[in-house]
Every structure is written in structure tokens, then in C-alpha cells.
């Protein structure tokens, strides 16, 4: 069965999240958002998904504080973070390139990363662009560190890094990434070449499993429609789905 890169990535992330009780998804994360909604569909309702800015997939009534308070209470089990730069210790940089504060390139800012990375047990780093300018030896600014000293309160942290080329697992003890699978059509050498940081490469690196047909059907069906609420542009581009205007009372 044919599939797009987006659909492959949705299935990759969904596999990491099966059985999760409560997944929260940030504002600029349509692929992780779709993965979370797929997991919910597969869970027959036992997985809760809170998509920020969605009309229908969020449960907040306490304003901007609630996501963070909820995470602090230990009620959020998985979240996604990205990064303009990501390094081999899973540090992420959402602030900019060059010497802070007067940087050469300025991005938007760290948002919730410096908190959620510490308190959400399973944080999946997701960044499609897999080039040496993103996957760097050392980030120029640490928005949120990948690892902490032993005495720092940190129930949460990085679980894996998913890109358009491969999946890295994060090894907390070694404080490094390990190449887990390479997406079909990509190679280990290509990953090494495009990654600025060092990582562990096992003797054999399997291919990333392709999307299962039943999941592709779910993605293109209910998930595509659900994801069109928070991410209309994405749903149109990837699934050709446009949400009919439907306002809450």
C-alpha cells in the first residue's frame, strides 16, 4: 500500500505511544497530533489526547496555566518537542543561532520546553528536517537540556528523536542517542552524513516498519477529519480534507 512520508512518521510516533493514558500536543505539531489521535482511535477511547488550540480535542477550562499545572501534577504522559537545533545530548534550541542575546538568527522562543521536558515522562523530539544545521554537535542556546544532574527533580525527559530520515532512541544512562531504525529509502551512511552530533550505531539497524494498512485507513479516515480542526492547512495538504465550518454554540 502506498503511503506518504507524513503517514510513515505518524505511524512511527503512534507505535511509541500505544497504551499512553494522556498525550498532549502543542500548537505546531500536526504530525505528532495525528499520531496521538491515531493512538486514541486504536485505544477505543482509553487514551486521552489534548490538542492545544483545538476546539474539540482539549479539556482545558483553566486558561493558559492548565496544561503546565496538569503536567506538574503528573497527569500528562507524553508530549512532543522540536528544535531549530538539537544536539547529541538531546539539548534543544528554540531561541536562535549565534551568541545570545544579539543573535544572528532569532527564532520565536522556548515556549513550554524548559518545563515540560522535565516533568512529562515520555517526550518525543520531532523534527522533519534532518541536516547538519539542525542536528548539531552543540546547540547555541539551551532552551531545555536533554539531561540533568542526578539531584535535579526530573521525572520526564527525552524518549526518542524522529526525523524524516530515521528514528533515534535516547539512552539516558549513556546520555546519547542510538540509531534505532532508518526509514525506507534512507541509509545509515546518509544519516551519519547529515547528523552533526555523534551517536551510537548498532551492528544492524533495521528499516522503520511501513504503515500498517488498517492504520493508514484510520489515518485517512477519522484522524484526517479530526486533525483538520487544529491543523486545517496540514489536513488539506496531506489528506485533502477540508473541515466544513462548524462552530460551537
Amino acid at each position, binding site marked *: 500500500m502506498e503511503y506518504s512520508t507524513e503517514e510513515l512518521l505518524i505511524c512511527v510516533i503512534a507505535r511509541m505511544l500505544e497504551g499512553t493514558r494522556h498525550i498532549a500536543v502543542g500548537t*505546531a505539531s500536526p504530525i505528532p497530533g495525528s499520531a496521538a489521535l491515531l493512538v486514541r482511535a486504536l485505544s477505543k477511547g482509553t487514551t486521552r489526547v489534548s490538542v492545544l488550540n483545538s476546539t474539540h480535542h482539549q479539556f482545558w*477550562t483553566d486558561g493558559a496555566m*492548565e496544561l503546565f499545572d496538569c503536567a506538574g501534577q503528573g497527569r500528562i504522559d507524553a508530549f512532543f518537542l522540536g528544535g531549530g537545533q538539537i544536539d547529541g545530548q538531546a539539548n534543544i534550541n528554540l531561541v536562535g543561532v549565534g551568541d545570545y542575546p*544579539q543573535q544572528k538568527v532569532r527564532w520565536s522562543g522556548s515556549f513550554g520546553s524548559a518545563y515540560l521536558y522535565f516533568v512529562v515522562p515520555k517526550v518525543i523530539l520531532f523534527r522533519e528536517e534532518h541536516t547538519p544545521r539542525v542536528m548539531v554537535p552543540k546547540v547555541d542556546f*539551551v532552551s531545555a537540556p536533554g539531561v540533568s544532574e542526578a*539531584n535535579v527533580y526530573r521525572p520526564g525527559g527525552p524518549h526518542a528523536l524522529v526525523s524524516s530520515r530515521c528514528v533515534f532512541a535516547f539512552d539516558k544512562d549513556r546520555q546519547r542517542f542510538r540509531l534505532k531504525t532508518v526509514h525506507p529509502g534512507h541509509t545509515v551512511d546518509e544519516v551519519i552524513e547529515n547528523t552533526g552530533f555523534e551517536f551510537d550505531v548498532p551492528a544492524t539497524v533495521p528499516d522503520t516498519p511501513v504503515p500498517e494498512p488498517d492504520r493508514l485507513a484510520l489515518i485517512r479516515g477519522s484522524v484526517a477529519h479530526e486533525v483538520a480542526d487544529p491543523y486545517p492547512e496540514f489536513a488539506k495538504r496531506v489528506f485533502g480534507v477540508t473541515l466544513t465550518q462548524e462552530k*460551537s454554540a
Partner: protein
Amino acid sequence: MTDNGLMFPNVDSLVEQILDGAKVVIPATRSGVAMEATRALVRRRVKNLHLVATPAAGLQADLLIGAGCVATVESAGITLDEYGQAPAFGRAVTTGQIKVMDTTCPAILAALQAGEKGIPFIPLRGLIGSDLVRFRDDYKVIDNPFAEDDPVVLLPAIVPDVALYHAPLADHHGNVWIGKQMELKVISHAARETIVTVEEFYDGNLLDDDRMAAGTVPALYVSGIALAENGAWPLGLPGAYDVDADHMTAYAASARTSDGFTQYLADHVHTVRAAAE
């Protein structure tokens, strides 16, 4: 209706309450941004604002920064979201025109809640080891006095001079309905003054109906209200209208250069007043 001194005849007179150098706390893009009031502030050429975003901001901050109204931005992020990076903000940082107090969302929210509670500081988990702490001289790491060997960050309370936002409703007593955007309650409590534009007026008293009261900021905290239909435009207002995507796309394109930004101000900020005069 009593003449409670809270009702302003228009947005331009309302924003006179916001003085040069004020620490102004503003909501996030989807929470009710007082864009009409922001344009009035640009027209008034307000200077040296210290913006505090709750906890991030977008077009509003970008406009004020590009127009030279801002000295400092305290925020977890400034972005146009799906319309891209905030171009005036980016330029202002790279040229050193403004000071940025970078932080993370829950830190700014917790510090505002500390302001609301009248407590001098508040602790927060996370942050340790990030460059946010390294570059924020006003954040402190202490040992948690309730545990052994447990470092924790303390954030000083934020007490803004003014909270500025746009809400769906206000009544003639000065009560403002914010719905479930509870962070607007927090900033109204934390700030010394609260200045609000509203879509429309509500007949009766919002506090008399418990369904409305739950989402109401009482007049006690409010210093001024003016009517501004479509007052969040081109941003959206929850439950009322969506963002004007075409306009945002056009802004993002114009503001990519300084000249384009100036032209945008001329077309969409300054001319409006000229037309009204």
C-alpha cells in the same frame, strides 16, 4: 448604570491610560488580543513599553516592536504561528534594538500568579540547566528547604502596571466577561490597572448570573473599557470570529523588510485614524 468612570468613548481615549514606559501584560494570540487598541497605541507613538506576554505573543508584539514602542519583551515566545516567524521582533533582536527576557511559558504564568497573590516569588520545577536560567539574573536557584539536595528555581513575582486585552462582553457596571480564558483573570488581578476593549455590552449585571460570573473579571480590577467591534482583528476572538488568514499572510510578507513594515503601518494603522478624522 452608574457613571463609574470606567467607560471610555473610544479606543484612542482609552489607551491614553497607558503611559510611556509602562509594564504592559498582554494575552497570547488566541486569548483575546486588543489589536484595535494596539493600533491606537502605535498611532499615539507610545514609547519604551515593557511587554509581558501571557505567556507568548504574536502580531501585537511584532507591531509594537516594529513601530518602536517597545524597550523590553518578557516572553516565552513571539511568533506569527502558521504565518511564520515574527519579522519585526527578529530584526529588533538581531540589531539589539530591544531587550528580550526569554523564559518558558509556565514561568511567566507562575510569576504572574505570584503577582496575583501578592507573594514576592514562586518556585517552579524544570528550567535548571537551561540557558534561560543562565541569562536571567532575576531567577534564582535555591535548595528546596523541605528536602535534601533538591535544587529548585525561584521566580520573582510580576506585577504589571497595566493588563490590556480584548473580551467578548462587558456590562455597564464595568464587569468584563472573559469566558474560560482564565489567564485573563490572573493578569487582571496581578496588574495594577486593567484596560479592556470589548465586542459588545451586556445588559444587566454579569455577576448576577452564576453561569456568567464564573468567567467574569469584576469591575473592582478594571480601570477602563471601550467598545471595539472586531477589536481583535486580524486575530480571532474565541467563540466569536476566526483569524483573518489572508491579512496575516499579507502582514507576514510585508513585514519581512523594514520598508514593507512601514508601508503596512501606513496602510493599516495610521490611515485608519486619518480616515476617521
